[in-house]
């Protein structure tokens, strides 16, 4: 008997005009001690499957057909009480969006302890000890100190790890991990993957891992399921599926996996398109609105100069300045970015990358140091028109796409807003046209504009936020893990677009990512961060070929194994 048995599952989201079938007739089985990977197109219904198993489909979604069995017992029709007993205790769930999964008003400690104590008979202090151990095992530094902090004081990757710890803390039999490592650097990722593998082996835990990262699949999965548009298109042993894919989609997916070993000019496009689907039109930059010349003065010298930038967060306040405690998230970091260049930031999760991005875009005020953009110091700007002009030139794609979208606005309005506000288009019809193009190009298709952000999958949300950032026709783009939730095909398409923009218009980018392959292909120069410091800056080829700093070396060696893939490619 399988641990998890999904048969013929169909999930639909009934709408007023039509019913959207997110998952159609999917059957999967998972044995104890095994890892089942689910890959597939962004928006294919992977998360939906996971949510259906644990009975937390977002309204108005419902299981229209099929059965879900845990250890032979049917769980898709349980009442509230019975399913609650299963959640957490027997099935541990890691949601895709770790940044919004934590209650903002409770400390990490409170959330961990309450979960542990709900399921395990432990005293508060025992639970606390266990919580700290768990945090340590998922690689949070100084867990005893940091456990008392609130989620917003954690970096994206750290929050993801907290979520993992929360899912594992009651020692469930089945773990559903929806993109558990997107925000993690390779070393932490390796640690987490080891932890998961160990769980499977030692405690016979079954694991359903949803991911876009072929490396992860190759490394830990026993079986792989490939989903495309709600359907299961291929299902089999990992070696078999990755080594000898049968379905055309699987093939194109594997071929699109970016490589870290060589530098290539463009990412390979996925050419698989199902007959019925409308093809995504590619944008011809030279004629499109996006490609219209920018009206900025050419910068002499570096476009962005970061000097001795530092950021201290107050983590304990007190009347007396001497008693206040600060956390130094960024310590005197300096670097330049030349016009038309892409500067990559990689590094340990929690090392201050997002903080730097926020400092540059003016969301935080630095505790020290300066940021010059096109020769002007940003903090010195006073008049509103100057600030506006600067803002339009500089855009940011947030690490957490969902919370950066206003849930009450339709997607088309979200994307149209900067165009309208900066008066970048002459008429409303043009605005609508541009918005459609942008949405189409990031692969959301027609009709997406009418929906609200919560109606999208994780990857789709990320694409909305990319479309919005492009809508200002920026000169400088800060990308904080822009493609972490995207499947390789969409990722390729978007990264290619960015590259095109760069070539045609000299778009300058600060590119933050954990995906070393992507970084290598995208960036001209790369900075490696650790503990709030920039430990190495080098040209990308140089860095990959001859890393200097010990940490950089460690990172590169820890890249998930690509042997399997490399063979096919």
């Amino acid at each position: 008997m399988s641990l998890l048995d999904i048969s013929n599952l169909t999930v639909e989201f009934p709408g007023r005009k039509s019913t959207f079938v997110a998952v159609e007739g999917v059957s999967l089985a998972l044995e104890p001690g095994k890892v089942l990977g689910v890959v597939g197109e962004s928006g294919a219904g992977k998360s939906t499957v996971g949510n259906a198993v644990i009975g937390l489909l977002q309204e108005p979604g419902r299981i229209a057909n099929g059965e879900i069995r845990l250890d032979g017992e049917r769980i898709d029709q349980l009442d509230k009480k019975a399913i609650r007993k299963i959640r957490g205790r027997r099935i541990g769930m890691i949601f895709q969006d770790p940044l919004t999964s934590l209650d903002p008003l409770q400390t990490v400690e409170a959330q961990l302890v309450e979960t542990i104590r709900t399921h395990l008979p432990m005293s508060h202090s025992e639970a606390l000890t266990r919580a700290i151990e768990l945090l340590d095992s998922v690689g949070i530094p100084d867990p005893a100190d940091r456990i008392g902090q609130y989620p917003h004081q954690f970096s994206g990757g750290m929050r993801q790890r907290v979520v993992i710890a929360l899912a594992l803390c009651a020692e469930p039999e089945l773990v559903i991990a929806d993109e558990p490592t997107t925000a993690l650097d390779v070393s932490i990722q390796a640690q987490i993957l080891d932890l998961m593998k160990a769980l499977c082996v030692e405690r016979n835990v079954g694991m359903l891992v949803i991911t876009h990262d072929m490396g992860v699949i190759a490394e830990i999965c026993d079986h792989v399921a490939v989903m495309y548009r709600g359907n299961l298109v291929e299902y089999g042993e990992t070696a078999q599926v990755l080594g000898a894919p049968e379905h055309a989609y699987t093939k194109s997916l594997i071929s699109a996996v970016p490589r870290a070993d060589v530098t290539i000019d463009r990412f390979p496009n996925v050419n698989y398109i199902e007959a019925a689907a409308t093809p995504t039109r590619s944008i011809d930059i030279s004629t499109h609105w996006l490609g219209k010349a920018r009206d900025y003065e050419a910068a002499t010298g570096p476009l962005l100069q970061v000097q001795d930038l530092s950021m201290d967060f107050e983590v304990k306040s007190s009347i007396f300045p001497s008693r206040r405690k600060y956390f130094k998230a960024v310590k005197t970091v300096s670097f330049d970015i030349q016009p038309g260049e892409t500067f990559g930031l990689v590094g340990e999760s929690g090392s201050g990358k997002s903080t730097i991005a926020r400092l540059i875009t003016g969301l935080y005020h630095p505790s020290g140091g300066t940021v010059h953009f096109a020769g002007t110091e940003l903090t010195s700007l006073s008049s509103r028109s100057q600030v506006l002009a600067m803002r339009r030139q500089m855009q940011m794609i947030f690490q957490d796409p969902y919370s950066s979208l206003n849930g009450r606005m339709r997607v088309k309005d979200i994307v149209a807003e900067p165009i309208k506000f900066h008066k970048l288009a002459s008429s409303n019809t043009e605005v609508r046209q541009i918005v459609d193009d942008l949405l189409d190009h990031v692969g959301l298709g027609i009709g997406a504009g009418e929906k609200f952000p919560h109606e999208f999958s994780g990857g789709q949300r990320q694409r909305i936020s990319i479309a919005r950032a492009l809508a200002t026709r920026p000169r400088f783009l800060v990308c904080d893990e822009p493609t972490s939730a995207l499947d390789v095909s969409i990722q390729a398409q978007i990264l290619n677009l960015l590259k095109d923009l760069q070539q045609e218009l000299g778009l300058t980018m600060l590119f933050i990512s954990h995906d070393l392959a992507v970084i290598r292909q995208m960036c001209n120069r790369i900075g490696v961060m650790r503990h709030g410091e920039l430990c190495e800056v080098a040209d990308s080829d140089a860095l990959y070929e001859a890393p200097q700093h010990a940490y950089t070396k460690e990172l590169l060696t820890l890249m998930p194994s690509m042997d399997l893939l490399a063979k096919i490619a």
Partner: protein
Amino acid sequence: MFGFAIRRLFQALIVMFVVALLAFTMFRFVGDPVNQMVGVETSIAEREALRQRLGLNDPMPVQFARFVAGAVKFDFGTSYQFRQPVADLFAKRLPATLELSFMSALFALLTGIPMGVYAGLNRESWLSKIFLSVSLIGVSLPTFFIGILLIFLFSVTLQWLPSFGRGEVVDLGWWSTGLLTVSGWKAIILPAVTLGLYQMTLIMRLIRAEMLEVIRTDYIKFARARGLPDRIVNLRHALKNTLVPVITITGLQLGAIIAFATITETVFQWPGMGLMFLQAVQNVDIPIMSAYLLMTAFIFVTVNFIVDILYYVIDPRLRIGRP
């Protein structure tokens, strides 16, 4: 925090000063105190003399300066009606009002919060629809009307509860409490319910509205996925995330209850500040009115200060390290 409090204290003084100033310009429109202080037959010359003696003929700035000079020494003058120092009167009336406000706030919170949580969680259930509609009676009928209906039912018809007053009061020296006697408890029920009905409805509806949103957030979903019991999910996570607007309103309402329980106190002849204030307005008892408004200002400044602090207590994102 400390600096924050000091700054607030300073602002409070300004607020009270402005309140006093406004109050003084306002009193001209409330009526003529002299007419209320003398019998009908008193001659015009006598009235004029009285007016002179009370300083009502002085220019407004002089009267105001005199008031402020006294107020800084906690001397608010003598009540026109009662011929007693206002400060003494306040000291006597305050316990009644505070006890009533406390009990009605307690009533509003203890009934409003659970009903609101329930209605937010069970949007479609009949019980929550009943909560929602029935509680509206509390707001759609005037307080005096509700008070009188309650009196009619519980005092006249059933004769369970007294219709007026505080019952037996135990004097603890600086505080006289009705909460130590059975008759005191009986007496406080009707006024507290009457007074709390509006706040209860408001709190319940606010919580429901906020709950509806919060329970759809990812962190609640994740809390469920972790298998936390409903009690913890609903109260510790969901409810807490609805609290910012709720405490704002609760704070305002509490201030309003303390300061302006006038109608309820009048209906139930509750010997508190509100009753006294209404009488003071009716009789143009300027010293009481001005001191009262000052006190009200102080109450509101304090309550709002506490509410602001509570924001920080509830929401860590507002708290520290905001660069």
